[in-house]
């Protein structure tokens, strides 16, 4: 089944998205953030905590005098490496214990610093490539089933309970496990350290927790004969750091949106744009599939009205991702089944939107999110709504299918809820597997008309954004009716302009690996 859509309009939307994103990319190239610099240290091998449990990457970046920040952390840290002969991990510990300070090494020549950094940069790039090759090998040996890939969340707050839940979900048929983060984490300007057993609404993303879950999923992957993917969140104030940890621990997917943090978490827009870019270059190189967050437009406002904003955001997310070197196959654009169940023909509108997205982004592993906003304590009705969501997903060939839970409105899923959700999805997707191939849309009918309306409204919206510029558009509330000032919001104090001598060895390595032009 194919919608007849105006392909010229689609071309115009893409061209406008390019025009919208190009000036932002120029801004990004002239700036960096504390989170990008911390991620440079993490990639070099800095880990652990220092005084007062402060993570060493934070401790070291914060130890740099503010007037030296514009040059980046790599050169001062490289000078210290060259002079002490320590490796990055040992040097970081020495700085944390007060045995060295970066200021001691100001006289060491830049060339010596670059030389000292080079082997560790190469080692990190090699490790990322190795982890990617490991994934490829496993995927070819124990491949996943045909999409939609069933994706479930675990969110107990305790990584060990999460592990039990994840293994049980895989046995029931899940192919992707996402560990939801503790609800406050997106606003922490550091990544917590070590295994964690307490969290609210989710479990902290830490490198140790990544390892624990990866190990468990690798084990069950072998046992079940199909590769199970692991998902976490590169969003909030630590996008690039999470992306670097995920690259090193072989996560397979990361929630990563170019505007979500700005609109829905009041994170500064400049911070977000810079951070998303560096994190996406890392994701591109590590083969990680991003999941974008367009579902949020639909949960915070009316889903019928917001459909054009979803499509516009998808075009913008796609363009940002392309500019970070991501191929379409790694761009999991988001959409959600959130139209009120009371609306006559609401199902038709859902099908229209899902199919429109499928046709406009044919090579993207689309991420389809389940109903949440209109789910209530009536779990029986909720299970039914989820069934129609499942039908829409298989009909329109969505790729990443987040299974809806009948208890969505009640609690983070019980083990039994996940099993029922997977059972529901498996039943629908099996019984209606080729339904979409067997039917055609009525020319000019309700579904085609709705899709055409959404596309033309999206075009009008993108035209407004193109005219205003993306930052100004966000300031004036064009997206989701949320207004965010360019210099307001969380994390703005961590944004800085690069000096002429700014140096980030991973930026050049990642750009080269992704086939992008060098910056300046």
């Amino acid at each position, binding site marked *: 089944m194919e919608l007849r859509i105006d392909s010229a309009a689609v071309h115009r939307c893409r061209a406008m998205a390019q025009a919208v994103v190009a000036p932002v990319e120029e801004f990004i190239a002239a700036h960096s953030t504390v989170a990008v610099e911390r991620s440079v240290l993490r990639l070099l091998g800095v880990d652990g905590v220092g005084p007062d449990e402060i993570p060493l990457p934070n401790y070291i970046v914060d130890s740099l005098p503010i007037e030296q920040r514009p040059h980046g952390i790599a050169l001062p840290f490289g000078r210290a490496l060259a002079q002490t002969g320590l490796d990055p991990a040992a040097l970081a510990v020495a700085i944390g214990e007060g045995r060295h300070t970066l200021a001691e090494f100001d006289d060491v020549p830049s060339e010596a610093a670059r030389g000292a950094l080079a082997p560790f940069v190469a080692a990190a790039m090699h490790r990322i490539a190795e982890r990617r090759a490991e994934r490829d090998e496993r995927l070819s040996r124990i491949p996943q089933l045909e999409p939609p890939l069933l994706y479930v969340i675990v969110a107990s707050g305790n990584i060990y309970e999460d592990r039990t839940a994840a293994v*049980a979900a895989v*046995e029931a048929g899940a192919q992707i496990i996402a560990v939801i983060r503790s*609800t*406050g984490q997106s606003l922490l300007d550091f990544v917590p350290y070590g295994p964690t057993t307490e969290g609210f609404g989710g479990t902290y993303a830490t490198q140790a927790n990544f390892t624990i879950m990866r190990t468990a999923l690798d084990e069950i992957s072998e046992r079940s004969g199909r590769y199970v993917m692991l998902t976490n969140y590169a969003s909030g104030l630590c996008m690039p750091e999470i992306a670097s940890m995920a690259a090193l621990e072989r996560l397979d997917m990361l929630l990563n949106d170019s505007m979500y943090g700005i609109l829905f*978490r009041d994170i500064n827009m400049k911070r977000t744009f810079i951070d998303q870019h560096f994190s996406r270059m890392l994701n591109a190189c590590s083969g990680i599939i991003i999941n974008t967050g367009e579902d949020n437009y639909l949960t915070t406002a009316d889903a019928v009205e917001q459909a054009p904003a979803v499509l516009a955001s998808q075009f913008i997310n796609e363009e940002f991702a392309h500019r970070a070197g991501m191929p379409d196959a790694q761009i999991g654009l988001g959409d959600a089944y959130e139209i009120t169940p009371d609306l006559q023909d609401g199902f038709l509108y859902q099908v229209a939107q899902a199919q429109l997205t499928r046709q406009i982004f044919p090579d993207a592993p689309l991420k389809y999110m389940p109903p949440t906003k209109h789910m209530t304590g009536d779990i029986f009705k909720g299970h039914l709504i989820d069934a129609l969501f499942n039908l829409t997903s298989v009909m329109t060939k969505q790729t990443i299918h987040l299974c809806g839970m009948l208890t969505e*409105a009640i609690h983070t899923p019980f083990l039994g809820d996940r099993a029922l959700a997977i059972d529901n999805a498996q039943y629908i997707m099996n019984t209606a597997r080729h339904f979409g191939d067997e039917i055609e849309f009525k020319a000019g009918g309700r579904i085609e008309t709705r899709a055409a309306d959404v596309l033309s409204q999206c075009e009008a919206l993108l035209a407004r954004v193109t005219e205003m510029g993306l930052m100004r558009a966000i300031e004036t509330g064009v997206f989701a009716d949320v207004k965010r000032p360019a210099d307001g919001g969380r994390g703005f104090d961590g944004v800085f302009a690069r000096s002429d001598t700014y140096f980030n060895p991973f930026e050049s390595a990642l750009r080269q690996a992704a086939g992008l032009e060098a910056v300046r």
Partner: protein
Amino acid sequence: MSDQIVKPYGDTMNDGRVQMSFTLPISWSEAADEAARQLVAKMGFEEVQVVEGRAIASGFSFFVVYASTPHGIDAAAIKAPSAKAHAMSMDDVDAFVRERIGRKVRVAGACIGTDAHTVGIDAILNMKGYKGDYGLERYGMFETMNLGSQIAVEEFVRIARDRELDALLASQVVTQKGSDIKNFTALAELLEAEGLREKVVLICGGPRVTNLMASELGYDAGFGRGTLPSEVAAFIATSMEKRGLR
């Protein structure tokens, strides 16, 4: 049995039939079905039927059970006062405030603590509102601030003092491990400690909130799922008048 005592109704008065489902951390077998049956019997149920029992993962089994309860309840004697007693439209509320309060009412709402789920507070405050009922931002006689998500209790109280708020709306969606109760309690206690409690209408909201629970926590009202903005607005206006908050 008194006429007022009621029991769950299956298909016959007083049959007491109840459905339930649960997971046990054991592998499925016929013995697992029997374990589920005996467990439900231990809960005090009678005529227990395990209608579905199956493995959902290694070491976990899921059951659907029907059973009869011997208990009944005097439903007529139960009291749970609702805060939604005053049915007023937006125009009614604005007129009421203009006449009886004589100035604009200052209201702020926030998801407190680490909660980032603003869907509830947005439905009440945002201009657009919920189910065709306009949000408080649209009210002519309300000066409304939506502080958004993850607002520390201390911050909320500081804003209440600095902005001389008349009403505070605290929202909690995440309820894991009692985090909602802790945050609601912390807010009420801090307002008390700062001497502000008597000066404000204090309201909590969220899908798990009930008015009864709110009064136990020291709030003036609690609003749960399905609440309309006008119900909250009417409560604020009428309770300000009742308490002489001008």
